[in-house]
């Protein structure tokens, strides 16, 4: 596709995304899009550590939980509004990312995945049992919605309703997609890809694989903290059951189907897994079985995901000398 054609396509998508809630006013559909966006943000985070850097982080849902609980506790117990609680959640989750990543990322591939699996399970057990702080199985209720931004002249941008939240999430999503795009072009992103492709070669050109992995992990953790915070302030109620290892597996399926290591894969994967079951209510009971089969089929036949597959088919193979 020529450059200007690409701009037209992405331009239309962006325009459609911006005008969606104005055209589709049914809050049910707005809610679905909000959930898609929430999942997308988390899958972009997953993409950074697992898709691009190739390290499978199975504490994914646990980290979202850290962000959610931090934001929730800040909001309910310390009366912080969203705009303070959210950065706090990002920071706290980032710190956890460093604390957990620093020791774990010195270990090889599958050992790292197992360590994160262990951490994910421990986090869930803590969420369930540390009742004074997390409320245990009952969770935390009464989390405030993001407060509006006052504008001059008695107006305000409100993020309380589904529509307001839609734009809030969309803004973050735009930023994260841009971040991912520029990550590919940056020194860090190229180092991350190198680590995934060939660790020995990566070292021999002067890249510290431990430093790269930890940076990717912390960056991913911070974005998961953001996801958790947004989640908490949207649903206004959180409980441990959202932050389990099966949830991580579900996100993993989304990443794989969409396309690991691609730019638009996470969004596509999140959209397919979230929106489709809503429209195919008849198979709702069997949706998890379908996830399982889909994941297996993709790994066996299309491990690069849908976007990855499309990228390969449209890759240019001629010389620059045209």
């Amino acid at each position, binding site marked *: 596709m020529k450059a200007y054609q690409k701009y037209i396509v992405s331009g239309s998508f962006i325009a459609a995304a911006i005008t969606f809630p104005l055209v589709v006013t049914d809050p049910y559909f707005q809610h679905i899009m909000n959930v898609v966006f929430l999942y997308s943000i988390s899958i972009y985070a997953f993409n950074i550590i697992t898709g691009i850097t190739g390290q499978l982080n199975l504490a994914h849902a646990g980290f979202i939980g850290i962000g959610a609980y931090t934001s929730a506790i800040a909001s309910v117990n310390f009366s912080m509004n969203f705009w303070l609680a959210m950065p706090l959640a990002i920071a706290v989750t980032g710190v956890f990312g460093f604390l957990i990543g620093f020791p774990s990322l010195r270990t090889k591939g599958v050992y790292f995945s197992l*360590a994160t699996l262990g951490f994910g399970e421990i986090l869930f*057990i803590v969420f369930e049992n540390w009742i004074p702080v997390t409320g245990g199985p009952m969770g935390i209720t009464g989390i405030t919605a993001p407060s509006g931004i006052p504008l001059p002249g008695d107006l305000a941008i409100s993020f309380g309703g589904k529509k307001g939240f839609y734009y809030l999430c969309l803004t973050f999503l735009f930023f994260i997609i841009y971040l991912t795009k520029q990550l590919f072009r940056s020194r860090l992103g190229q180092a991350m890809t190198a680590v995934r492709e060939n660790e020995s070669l990566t070292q021999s050109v002067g890249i510290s694989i431990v430093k790269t992995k930890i940076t990717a992990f912390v960056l991913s953790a911070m974005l998961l903290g953001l996801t958790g915070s947004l989640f908490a302030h949207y649903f206004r109620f959180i409980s441990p059951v959202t932050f389990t290892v099966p949830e991580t597996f579900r996100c*993993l399926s989304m990443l794989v189907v969409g396309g690991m290591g691609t730019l638009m894969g996470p969004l596509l994967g999140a959209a397919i897994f979230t929106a489709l079951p809503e429209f195919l209510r008849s198979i709702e009971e069997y949706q998890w079985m379908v996830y399982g089969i889909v994941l297996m089929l993709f790994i066996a036949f299309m491990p690069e995901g849908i976007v990855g597959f499309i990228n390969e088919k449209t890759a240019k193979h001629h010389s620059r000398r045209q």
Partner: protein
Amino acid sequence: MFFQQMVNGLILGGAYSLISIGLTMSFGIMKISNFAHGTIYMLGGYAMYFLSTVYGFPFFLSIALSMCAIGLLGIVFERIVFKPIYEGPHLNSILISTGLLIFLENGVLQLFGAQTMKVRAPYSDVIISIFSASITFQRLIVLIASILLIGGLFLFLNYLRIGKAIVATSQNARGASLVGIDITRIYILTFAISSGLAAAGGALLAPLFYVYPTMGSIPLLKAFVVVVLGGMGNVQGAIAGGFLVGIAESLGGAYISSDYKNAFPFIILIAVLLIRPQGLFGRSTK
């Protein structure tokens, strides 16, 4: 109290060893990480439920049949799910076995419902006292059966020709095939044994703990703890590790905290991964 907990730990350990041996074998011989291993254990439990409780087969026969049935089912899984990913990166084995896990767990959920089912435990009334510890015969059977099965596996791997071929394959697959060992058969047999032992674990523990679709998730994680502790691919390590983890969990739960009892195996896992990732019995590669 201490001795009681030790005995409980041994019983738990025996089961953990059974489940973990299969996992370590599939890693050592086929070089895959099988995240669906816990669901295979779960299928063993359900097989036991149907055979012994619903259809009323004799207890020990049900155990044996569950083991064989799920062992054979394992062959189906190996051919359909794992064969496509042998050549690719290791990550793919984790991902595809996760897909199998999701499929099996939810398939069982759909077919049989989410409720926990009680499995007939014909020997739970018989109580045996050993010094200051008392256990039901039902629980003792778990330990005895584990030891018998582990012993059987040991004889198989060391004295039967096909068993030795499996060991050879784990050390050098290409070399093994060059001397005429059929790797496909080895993989199938290994996975059948792996599934059969896990199913035996599920069948033996079912009368003690009920069966429900997600009953395999915690045992899966604990099996990984044991496998890492014992050294991935190391069968003796898995046996020793299984008993160690069982005892640690039992004692930790009794003396430290029972709410966080389930966290202890994971704390061990993380400690091992950070201090000595090759496990207690693995060989260091540096």
